[in-house]
């Protein structure tokens, strides 16, 4: 069952999860989107970020917390995200599967 869930992680979901992991404490929608842009060059729409975050949270991969505002956004509310262990497992599993598939193909695809 768990493996099924892991394999169900979409490519874009993995991207979002990894971006959150990289950002650590500072992961909220604006920074996540910027991190994805910086690392992958993909200019993702805000809509798909929010929808994906919402979906990942519903599926139990993320937890979020409303945080106090910072002066730079004029005191407005902010939702931070962090990964649940389940998400780490899923990412590991995804990576393991990919690495296994990659093995021996370096010469072909290098």
């Amino acid at each position, binding site marked *: 069952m768990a493996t099924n869930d892991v394999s169900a992680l*979409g490519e*874009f979901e993995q991207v979002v999860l990894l971006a959150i992991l990289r950002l650590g404490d500072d992961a*909220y*929608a*604006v920074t996540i989107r910027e991190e994805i842009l910086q690392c992958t*060059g*993909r*200019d*993702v*729409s*805000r*809509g*798909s970020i*929010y*929808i*994906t975050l*919402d*979906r990942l949270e*519903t599926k139990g991969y993320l937890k979020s917390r*409303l945080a106090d*505002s910072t002066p*730079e*956004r*004029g005191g*407005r*509310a*902010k*939702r931070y995200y962090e990964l649940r262990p389940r998400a780490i497992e899923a990412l590991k599993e995804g990576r393991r599967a990919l690495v296994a598939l990659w093995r021996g193909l370096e010469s072909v695809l290098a």
Partner: protein
Amino acid sequence: MTRHYSRVLRLFARFLPADLREPIAGDLHEEYLRLRERRGPTRAAAWLWWNAARLAFTFRWERATHGRPLPPIGDELREFSHMWDGLRQDIVFGARMLRRQPAFTFVALLALALGIGANTAIFSIVDAVLWRPLPYPSSNTVISLGEQRPRENRLHGLVAAADFYDWRRDNRTFSAMAGIEPASVNISGDAEPERIRGIIVTAGLLDVLGIKPALGRDFTRDEEIEGRHQVAIVTDGFWRRRFGADPSIVGRKITLNANPYEVVGVLPASFWWSSTPDVLLAYVTSGEASRANHSMEVVGRLKPGGSFDQASADLDAIGKRLSEQYPQTNARHFPHLVTLQASMVGDVKPALIVLLGAVGLVLLIACANVAMLLLARATSREREIAVRLAIGAGRGRLVRQLLTESVLLATVGGAAGVLVAAWSLTALRALLPASLRLLPGIGQVAVDVRVLTFAIGVSVVTGVVFGVIPAFMAADQRLASALHQEGRSASSGARSTRLRAALVVGELALSLVLLVGAGLLLMSFKRVLDVSPGFAPQNLIVAPIVRSSPRPQALTFYQELLERVRAIPTLEAAALGTPSPLSAIDGRSGFGIEGRTGESPIPVRARPRIITPGYFATLGIPLIAGRTFTERDAEGSPDVVILNAAAVHRYWPNENPIGRRITFFSNNRWLEIVGIVGDVKHAGLDQDTDPEAYLSYRQTHFAFMGQRLSLIVRTHASIATIAPMLRTVVTEIDRNQPIGAVSAMEDVIAETVAPRRLNLWLVAAFAGVALVLTASGLYGVMSYLVAQRTREIGVRMALGATPSSVLQLVLRQAGTMTMAGIAIGLIGALGLTRFLATLLFGVTTTDPFVYASVAVLLAVVALLAAAIPSSRATRVDPLRVLRT
């Protein structure tokens, strides 16, 4: 600032889940503040609202789909930032969409492959024949020189040899000039006797064409004088076929027409002349050249830097001088110049242009059909497109995607079309009548780079033409209404219905134009076939036999041939004559009428025919007055001539010419008119008959003609039985004597109408395709309309409407479109068919019968196409409709 924030929050309150509203609004606000510092408040506000709206729609959509995962399209579209990557992405995506709807793709591809394929095939012919230069260096300076003779209604007639010599001597604008006459040549001696194609040419033809012999040399002017030399040049193909490419051929003697000819040169493989000769013989003038006998085709090459107009003026001056100097033969004769290319393709140009136009109309109809299919598909894709708009695809981006899809569709269709073109060119080549095989470039017609470029260009343009309106309409739909699950985009529906109706009306109109064109050509063809050739062609077989020995021996040969052939039991009648009816070779000669002096208001000319007794009876040409020839009309007895009705009608309109005498200018013997016979359509069934003068083969006139008589026999036996018998008879007399192609006279006639038949077939095929496409288009639109009105029809039926009143209701809609299409088409046809005028025979471009029958045909086909969807409307179950 905060004003924006609170308003965004209010917007989000309607679309976003409660727990997300504030943080998302906060995120937007954060980015807004940053942007405001860099770009100013106006742009930042615009950015803010644009993104807030997009987010609102995204979440509205997410809820509408009940939490189903987002389609990956949104990400895919945004994945590539570069234009090229985007294009690639569009293509990949488009291909996937096309694969997903195989029925739609198949129907659309079929229409496109037919449309683009037919266009590519016709383009490749038109390009090769009309638009490519002739295969000569600076071919645009190669000019064909003819003679305009208004009194004979001739614009570019053949030239008399004496006039040619004067032109060649006196002109200052041509670097070379040459005369050409057709010749049929027998070759014998070293191998099997064979009849080959030849042309008789003066010196300088190779200079005119800009060609150097591969071996040996060109003819010299010295060789034009009779009795000095007998020289020949062979073409590359003949040299290889007959002489095994033997280089020692130059200087050797070969036997042509039973005379030894010295081969002085071999032409390169690149040499091309329309009659595809095997051998060139030097033109020889015997005695004084004639000014009355117009038999020569003249070509010239302009001096470097010289212009066409200078050459025209130059020749005009010479022609004026000649008509003053020789009023009897040259009065009101004007040299007439056109480029050689124009003179070669002039006859077929109107037909080719008409074909190109017709096939273009077919493509337009195919475009309209595919556009309608795309509109139908756009309806089923409304939701997908709404999603894309909702998650932020720009309209331009969306139009680009949809256009890429249609261009992709057209390109695949175009690729299939190129296959269709290659295949139909092969078929067309087999159908090509002999007379069209002489066209320049026709041998090179193929799907080559130019044709491929054309096909690709047409495909892309086609894709844009049929894709652009559906794409804009699809991208312009009302978002909100489309996003409702039960959403009926009423406004865009009404608009696309109007557009569909317009497309169908356009298709009907274009089809009508094509059908009228095909109808007019069909009528012309029927009228041509109805023309009596003036003789009875059934059961007639004709075989040309050129006898090159001197006249007395030739006479003996033909005499013996006729006796032996008449002894064959299955033959009912046999005679000899030249030129045989509808054979290509023909000339005309001026003559004087005894007792008439002064210049005649019309030129007095007739086409001479040399015949044996029994000729009229064998062919079934009626004797109108007087008598026919007998064996007693020989050398030594009084010279006699028989005229055709056309000659009598023209030169003795109100007299009986029997017993009068005429004399041909080429010799000074007076011939007594002893008979009048019916007209024979020699130049073609669709041509007027010229005055003709029949001469007895036993009396010496036009001696050169007396050496190439055709054997004509009437028999009920098949040509396969008769041909070997005739060959046996000929070789029994002389085993070195070849016999020309043995053909049935009915085939000869069929060959003369073959170009007309081919043209008719092609236009009719295009019209047929157009009709099928239009019918399917109408069928599609009516199905759509009925589906759209199902609810309305159900209500009507629930309120008591009968099936027949429902049928009426629906058919009225189809009828309105059909009537509009026919009306517009009739106006278009009246305007466009005048381009057909030169191709018609015995029918005007406004023939009411054709227009009426075509309109009725189209109306019936339209009714049938509308009948199926309409009858579906009558079977609407009101209960089921009202319950849903």
